[in-house]
Structure formats: structure tokens, C-alpha cells
């Protein structure tokens, strides 16, 4: 048996750990385009901000690969899949054979056709190499425009700001963090950032990146007509799944690579996991690309177990995000912007002065989503109600949830005993 994993991000790590729980011997080969052993991708903002150094970006200990008997090939790109022969082709023409294949290729930053975006001084922010490049040039940067006010854009903006750079954020939507959070939460975060000295431009986008005669970035012309001076631009509009390999090999794809409940693609013995996969989403009850870290790990883990013969179902992920901005914690779990008129019930609590906001979304006696800003300590308890679909049948229990006092002792007795006191074999 030979396992081959394309990609070395967190879903790949999940897969290695999933395989090794069941199969300690067979060969595992990991092929990665990047030059580093696995690192915490979200940690690159902490790295650029100077909060952690080269010693702390790694996701696993140095001996992880040797301990798990993994052969790691770095800086090698897989350029084609030969499904019929069970082989992959590497750049340079070399081929590798597999018995079970996992495609864990993640995503690539999306670059819209903006005039002037090709050339020096334009950065992306999704890899450690990107962060190192920005870090090396940071001392020469006075003003930077970040295009995109989502999670990655704001994280890039925050780290640059921490390094003394003047930062402007440009966002097409009416507010920042529009995808994962709701209006109120987005506004509280925007207010905090503005008070700190960030410039935020919403409802507009970059029309052109202006350059000097030498080709260096001079600034960004916005659709709204405004011109923002800048020495550099960070493009953080979004990440698109790396589908090329799968598409060219004829695997079924939609937005991501389509996988069944076992995380197997349309081809037998070929699996996909993480940001590249379109897998089952527990809340909407359909397949969806939800490019978040915990899902990437657990999809990797389950696909690894299945490659090793486990025949397990991926029961589905829940979208969740935790982001902090200068001590202001924000968490969103599940369905936070429900469609109107479908029987969702929303409860909100706002204390603008204290920067506390809480929104709970209910549907038919169940909690299906929440947004927490400022006071996030109960997040896990809310997650429990959502994940285990704990029925909320009494008004008293609902009132406790709404008042930030969820407790396990109000779970139905059998559920409490099953989750807390039986085998604790959770998922």
C-alpha cells in the first residue's frame, strides 16, 4: 500500500494522522509545492506582525515526518494525474505511483484583472513565503493599500499596521468581514479599526494600480474616483480552490472537487479534503466549499482513515471563525445571516460602549448559529448546542442561552450522559 498526498497544509497533516492511527507501516509520500515543512497558515499574520518568530510558525514538531514515517518532497509541483495508471506526474516529468491518492491542494489567491497589478510592489498574503517577503521589505513601506476587507485582508492590514505602516483597506461590500459576520459585528470591528487609525473605504474597489515610470507602485485609483497613495498593495480578495489537476484529469468538480460522504472523489481511491474540496455541510445539508481550518483538518483526518480502510462518513463541518483585532475578540459559528421568511428566529444583544454584541439564530427549537463580539467565553457551549443539535424545549433554557448563560445541565439527560459520560468518542 502506498499513500500519496498532494499538498502539505493542515488537511494533509490531518490525513497523515488519520492514516497512522490505523496503518503504522505503509509508505506515505507527501508532495508539496512550498519550500517549508507544514506551518500554521493563519500564523503568518502573527509572524509578519513580529509576535512570533521563525521558531514558532511550525504546526508540528521537527520530527513529525520521521516519527510518522512520511517521505516529504518539498518544492515539487504535481502537474498532472494519470488516474488510469494510478500515477501522478511531477514538474520535470518524474512520476510517482500510488494506491490511494489524496488531493489536498488548498486554494490560490484570486487576482482580478486590475490594471497595474502585474509587477513589483504587489503582494499576496496566503503563504509563509509571502509573509517573509513582506517582512523583508516592511522597513521601506510607509503606506500600503489592502484590497479586500475579509479575514485575510484584515489580518494582513493588522500586521502591517503593527509594523508602523499606514494602512488603507478597500472593500467592495458595504462593510468589512461581510462573508463570515453580520452587519453589527462588522461595524463594531470597523469602528475599532478606524479609531486605531486604519483608513477604510467600503462600497468601492481598485480600478487601477498606478505606477511610476520606473514601474514602482505609486498608489491606487478607486472606482469611486479617490486616489490613495501607496508604496505597495496587498491583494486579498479571496482564495479559489486549486482545481486544475482534478479538472484536467476529468474528476467531477463544481466550485470545489466534489466528494461523497467518504470524501472520495468521482474516481475510486482518489480523495479530496480541505479548501479544495466541496464536501457535506452539516447545517445547509448540502455540499459546499467552506474554506476554514478546522474543516480542513477533519476532512483530512477522515479521508486518511478511509484511505486506510475505515469506511467512515464525514458527518459534515460547521462554518466557524474566531478573529481578534487588538483585544476585540469576534467569533461566528454556523448560520449567522439566515435568509428571511424561512422561520428563523433571531435574538440580539448589543452594548456598543463595552463593545459587546451577541446574536443567536434559532430554528425550530434548535440553535443554528451565533455571533459573539467582545464576550466570547461561552462560544464552545453555543457550539455544543449547534453541533449536537441539542433541542431547546423550555423557555427557561432559551432565556439562558439568550442571556449568555448556556449550561450543559440543561441538555436533555440522555444527551448529557451520552456526550459527557459514555465513551467520549466524539464526532
Amino acid at each position: 500500500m502506498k499513500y500519496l498526498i498532494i499538498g502539505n497544509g493542515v488537511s494533509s497533516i490531518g490525513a497523515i494522522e488519520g492514516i497512522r492511527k490505523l496503518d503504522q507501516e505503509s509508505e506515505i509520500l507527501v508532495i508539496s509545492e512550498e519550500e517549508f515543512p507544514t506551518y500554521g497558515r493563519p500564523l503568518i499574520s502573527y509572524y509578519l506582525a513580529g509576535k512570533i518568530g521563525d521558531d514558532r510558525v511550525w504546526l508540528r514538531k521537527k520530527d513529525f515526518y520521521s516519527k510518522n514515517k512520511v517521505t516529504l518532497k518539498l518544492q515539487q509541483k504535481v502537474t498532472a494525474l494519470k488516474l488510469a495508471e494510478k500515477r501522478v506526474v511531477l514538474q520535470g516529468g518524474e512520476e510517482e505511483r500510488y494506491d490511494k491518492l489524496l488531493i489536498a491542494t488548498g486554494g490560490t489567491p484570486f487576482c482580478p484583472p486590475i490594471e497595474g497589478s502585474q509587477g513589483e510592489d504587489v503582494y499576496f498574503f496566503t503563504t509563509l513565503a509571502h509573509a517573509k517577503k513582506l517582512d523583508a521589505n516592511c522597513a521601506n513601506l510607509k503606506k500600503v493599500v489592502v484590497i479586500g476587507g475579509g479575514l485575510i485582508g484584515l489580518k494582513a492590514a493588522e500586521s502591517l499596521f503593527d509594523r508602523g505602516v499606514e494602512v488603507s483597506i478597500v472593500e467592495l461590500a458595504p462593510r468589512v468581514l461581510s462573508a463570515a459576520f453580520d452587519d453589527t459585528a462588522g461595524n463594531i470591528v470597523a469602528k475599532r479599526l478606524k479609531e486605531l487609525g486604519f483608513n477604510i473605504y467600503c462600497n468601492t474597489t481598485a480600478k487601477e494600480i498606478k505606477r511610476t515610470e520606473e514601474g514602482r507602485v505609486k498608489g491606487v485609483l478607486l472606482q469611486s474616483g479617490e486616489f490613495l497613495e501607496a508604496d505597495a498593495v496587498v491583494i486579498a480578495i479571496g482564495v479559489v480552490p486549486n482545481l486544475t489537476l482534478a479538472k484536467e484529469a476529468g474528476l467531477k468538480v463544481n466550485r470545489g472537487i466534489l466528494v461523497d460522504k467518504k470524501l472520495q472523489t468521482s474516481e475510486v481511491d482518489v480523495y479530496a479534503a480541505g479548501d479544495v474540496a466541496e464536501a457535506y455541510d452539516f447545517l445547509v445539508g448540502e455540499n459546499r466549499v467552506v474554506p476554514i481550518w478546522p474543516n480542513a483538518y477533519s476532512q483530512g483526518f477522515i479521508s486518511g482513515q478511509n484511505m486506510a480502510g475505515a469506511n467512515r462518513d464525514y458527518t459534515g463541518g460547521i462554518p466557524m471563525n474566531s478573529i481578534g483585532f487588538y483585544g476585540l475578540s469576534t467569533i461566528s459559528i454556523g448560520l449567522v445571516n439566515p435568509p428571511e421568511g424561512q422561520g428563523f428566529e433571531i435574538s440580539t444583544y448589543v452594548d456598543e460602549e463595552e463593545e459587546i454584541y451577541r446574536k443567536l439564530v434559532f430554528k425550530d427549537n434548535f440553535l443554528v448559529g451565533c455571533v459573539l463580539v467582545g464576550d466570547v467565553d461561552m462560544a464552545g457551549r453555543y457550539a455544543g448546542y449547534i453541533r449536537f443539535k441539542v433541542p431547546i424545549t423550555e423557555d427557561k433554557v432559551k432565556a439562558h442561552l439568550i442571556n449568555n448563560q448556556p449550561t450543559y445541565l440543561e441538555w436533555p439527560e440522555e444527551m448529557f450522559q451520552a456526550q459527557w459520560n459514555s465513551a467520549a468518542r466524539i464526532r
Partner: protein
Amino acid sequence: MKRVYVNPEVCIGCKLCELACLTEHSQSKDLIIAYREERMQGLLPRNTVEESGWITASLNCRHCAEPYCIQACISGALTKDAESGRVVYEEEQCVGCWSCLMACPFGAIKRHPIKEKIVKCDLCPERSIPACVSACPNQALTFEEK
């Protein structure tokens, strides 16, 4: 693996388990100093006695077989020890992103009151029976393999 199991039916809500946890994880190993002084510096019990009407129970990390917190941890600060089954936390590595706190459906992870770090149950690696279990006067907590 052996875990701490709770029996709400016999718990008397005395919170001695919280105090035992506090003492065990203190510098001084002295209840009074731990409570009066070290708490101000951020010492917290890892467990929580929950109350709902007349029912009370002491809850802590389940040391899950496939922990949600580990899936969510972006820094590798949380790992599952293959031999003991403990979910081990390495404070140095943590960046305080609260991803694990959000992901743990058992609410077993707390924020450190001062540092940008988390606090969680370690099952008292230096003891044969965790401090909370030893302290319980009515055997509402047991440490056993089920």
C-alpha cells in the same frame, strides 16, 4: 483511557474540586496563597462547577478520542499524547486565537485572564488520580476506564 466522569445526582455543588484544581496548578501548592494571591495573577481552576436550579456538576475537558480543539488549533499548541490519551497543551506555542475555545463543544477551554493564552485541564500529569477527583467528598467524580 481513564477519564474523569461526573455524576450530577450526587454532586453537592461545594466546589472543592475547583479549589483542588486551583491548588494543584498553583506555584505555591497552598490553597490560601493560591486563592488569595495567585488568582490575581491569573490562576484559574481548569474545571467549572455548573449549576442549574438544584442540579450541579463539575465539568472539565473530556480528553476526546478525536478532539475538536486539536482540529481547530492553528499553532500546534494542542496535541493528543498517543500513549496516555491526554490532550496536552503547550502554552509557549499558543497565540491566543481562541479557535479551540470556539470549537470545543464541551466549553472546556478558558481564556487566561491576563495573558493571550488558554487554560485547560491536563489531568494532573504528576498525580495518579486528578486533584478534583481526590477532593470530591461525595464521589460525584470518578477516574476510571469505561
